[in-house]
């Protein structure tokens, strides 16, 4: 696709990751893709080989959401969820987020802002973490991050296997 060049990522301050990206679609549709379970399941996946069997959303202030990803070959699962703090369709969503197995205290807060111009939509996605260490751990391994603690606990998988399959 042609929009890869419009992608920027910044490690802002010491606790934030800011991502911007342009999409060739009105923001109403981008908002839908971020909030309707049947659509989220189609794109918010991990590396190849991971599916998203659970995606539950109660889209209102104070409502909860829950995502579970599953590794189709070995059955491992990873879950995360949170609470919506602000829902302004079709332009803004603020929600807390926490992985089931996260080893850090507290929650991260994600903000999504959609701005439409001439039928195209600019997405700004900001995640504020509870500490600089958490932010950096996520940067280093966006998906593995949620799995780290389960690896430590299960002590089943060799670290090399983990980094090979998850970073691919």
């Amino acid at each position, binding site marked *: 696709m042609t929009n890869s060049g419009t992608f920027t990522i910044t490690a802002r301050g010491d606790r934030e990751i800011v991502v911007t990206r342009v999409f060739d679609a009105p923001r109403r549709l981008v908002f839908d893709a971020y909030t309707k379970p049947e659509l989220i399941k*189609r794109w918010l996946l991990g590396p190849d080989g991971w599916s998203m069997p659970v995606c539950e959303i109660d889209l209102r202030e104070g409502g909860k959401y829950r995502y579970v990803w599953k590794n189709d070959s070995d059955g491992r699962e990873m879950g995360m969820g949170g609470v919506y703090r602000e829902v302004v369709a079709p332009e803004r969503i603020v929600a807390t987020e926490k992985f089931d197995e996260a080893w850090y205290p507290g929650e991260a807060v994600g903000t999504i802002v959609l701005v439409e111009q001439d039928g195209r939509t600019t997405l700004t996605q900001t995640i504020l973490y509870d500490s600089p260490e958490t932010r950096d751990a996520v*940067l280093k391994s966006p998906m593995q991050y949620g799995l780290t603690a389960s690896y430590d606990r299960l002590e089943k998988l060799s670290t090399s296997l983990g980094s090979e399959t998850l970073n691919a």
Partner: protein
Amino acid sequence: MEPNSYERSSVRLDATFAALADPTRRAILARLAKGEASVMDLAEPFAMSQPAISKHLKVLERAGLISRGQDAQRRPRRLEARPLRDATEWLEKYRRFWEARFQRLDALLQELQAGDVGSRQRSRKKRAAG
């Protein structure tokens, strides 16, 4: 819980980003990329006192981005490329992870738009027919 390897290795990355957030420090690194230089050499292009420059150098040194050369008189600073390369690599890895998602989203949005146009045309035809 025991600090795991991610926590241990994250300390330097964070210091790297903090060090790189300042334009003067980025300019100092750009200068050192051309070769080692003394504090006086480094202060020269900036309208800054030597102590002010030394403060920036301390931040860069703590982040492991520069080191001091052997010459005891001049104490030349030199660039340490490794942490900078690490930070860039991590950002790039994170970028690739999200870009894969966004490309799937691109395809989905295209499909939704096609459906949108299709259903609008159908309802227009319906209205026209009715």
